[in-house]
């Protein structure tokens, strides 16, 4: 499991697939999800295979999630905010 080397910092909460996730204020959704052990953030639109954050710098587009109903958002580029409702981007929702 991932660990945090320092315990300090303000904590905010958002939900991922309905589960409450704690994030440090100012960190990205992807970092908070990885810290919480959630490495799968989307399903491939081609095969449905699970995918997760790969580059953490906005390049690979593997961490696409749906945030408050808006699809195709990059979890590694968006700072977690209190109350966000985040869901995996599912293959059957984006293509038949």
């Amino acid at each position, binding site marked *: 499991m991932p660990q945090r080397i320092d315990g300090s910092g303000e904590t905010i909460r958002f939900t991922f697939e309905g589960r409450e996730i704690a994030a440090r204020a100012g960190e990205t959704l992807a970092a908070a999800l990885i810290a919480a052990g959630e490495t799968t953030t989307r399903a491939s639109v081609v095969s449905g295979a699970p995918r997760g954050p790969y580059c953490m710098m906005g390049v690979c587009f593997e961490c696409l999630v749906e945030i408050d109903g808006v699809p195709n958002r990059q979890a590694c580029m968006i*700072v977690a905010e209190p109350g966000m409702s985040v869901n995996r981007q599912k293959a059957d929702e984006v293509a038949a």
Partner: protein
Amino acid sequence: MNGYDVVIVGAGPAGMACASEACSAGLSTLVLDEQPRPGGQIFRDIEVSDRKRRALLGKDYGEGARIAGAFRASGAEYVPGAVVWNIDSAKRIDYSAGGRSHSVEAKSLVVATGAIERPTPMPGWTLPGVTTVGAVQILFKTSGIVFEDVVLVGSGPLLWLAATQLIAAGSPPKAIVETVPKARYREAARHFGKALPAWRYLAKGFAMMRAVKKAGVPVHRDATDIAIEGETVAAAVTFAAGGRRQRIETAHVALHQGVVPNQQITRLLNCQHRFDESQRAFLPVVDESFETSVPGVFVAGDGAGIGGAKSAEMRGRLVAMRIAEKAGRPAGEAAKLRAEIAKDAAVRPLLEALYAPSADILSPADTTMVCRCEEITAGQIREAVALGAPGPNQVKSFLRAGMGPCQGRMCGLAVSEIIAAAKGETPSTTDYYRIRPPLKPLLLSELAGLGAEEPREAAE
């Protein structure tokens, strides 16, 4: 629309230093950067990391605080969270910030978008839990996140740096699986003498290797045929080394085969590029002041060829000096800076020879997925070539390779290498995808709202 003497895209060491120098020459300067805070990837979150984290990340990371401080004090306009999605031939820049698009015009454009990690296609590299080594570092820098079981796989200085940082944090990697062939050390050794002027890098390298040894991290050298196993997430990494097949169980694998210039903007602007055999990557063609073949478009930092953070800072300053000089402003002493840049670069031939990408990565097996977005395999690319598709753009049109949301960033170099090998030509001849806007995906509704500028700009 607002206009600036200089618009800089990217707030890493090159962009920040360029902005500081441009401002001190009296040039109106705007910096656009995707991240919420300056630093780029190398100095990610330098302004907010605490003393403890900085100590763990090492002295070179701390250097970023000085550069960022000067940048903040420079007077440059700075828009964080700005996603540049188009630049046209008149240097009009469209960017998205705060949920809507804005446009600015630049007399000179500085592309300071740095480097991305080289695509590393191998079996299982799309499984959740597999990341780049850079991603591991970013998680550490921004959130203090470490993994007790991470296995670092590949080659390059970053592999050793990440290992050292994780060791310092008390969470050493489970293993290092290095792909550098044994013979490479002999080949690279001939560059050793020439690298001595940059002895600090060599000393740092040896120190990192000693730290790994002292921490007792298992290092598997000359590894080949690497694969990541797992059903829905990564479960193990397997490889051949020491004459036998080996398997290490882990849920976290970090891959690295060096970094390469991020070409998206220079390709979009139709700047000339060349394939550099030593860096094994496409570089924009630049003059001694890092101006591209498109007048007024400069590349500062790793985007013009990998040189590292220190070089990026110096190159950023040099670019600003040249822009100031062209604008008739007082400019600093360029000759001395050029000499410094050259001295700093003395270590590159050694590093490039030693850490050249592994053969397995350049020539993946037919069944290995190369384009992650559209799930196109190396075999499909070779088949398209056999049918007569002459280059990357035809392969893209035919197979959809490079057509997904990453817009070819994660497969482009691998696709060019595979086509070049299949046709028996150099990547220079094969060339690369044409890059089309938007540079990053854009909401249709945001495009529809384009041009409805805010009153402040409309009044000008």
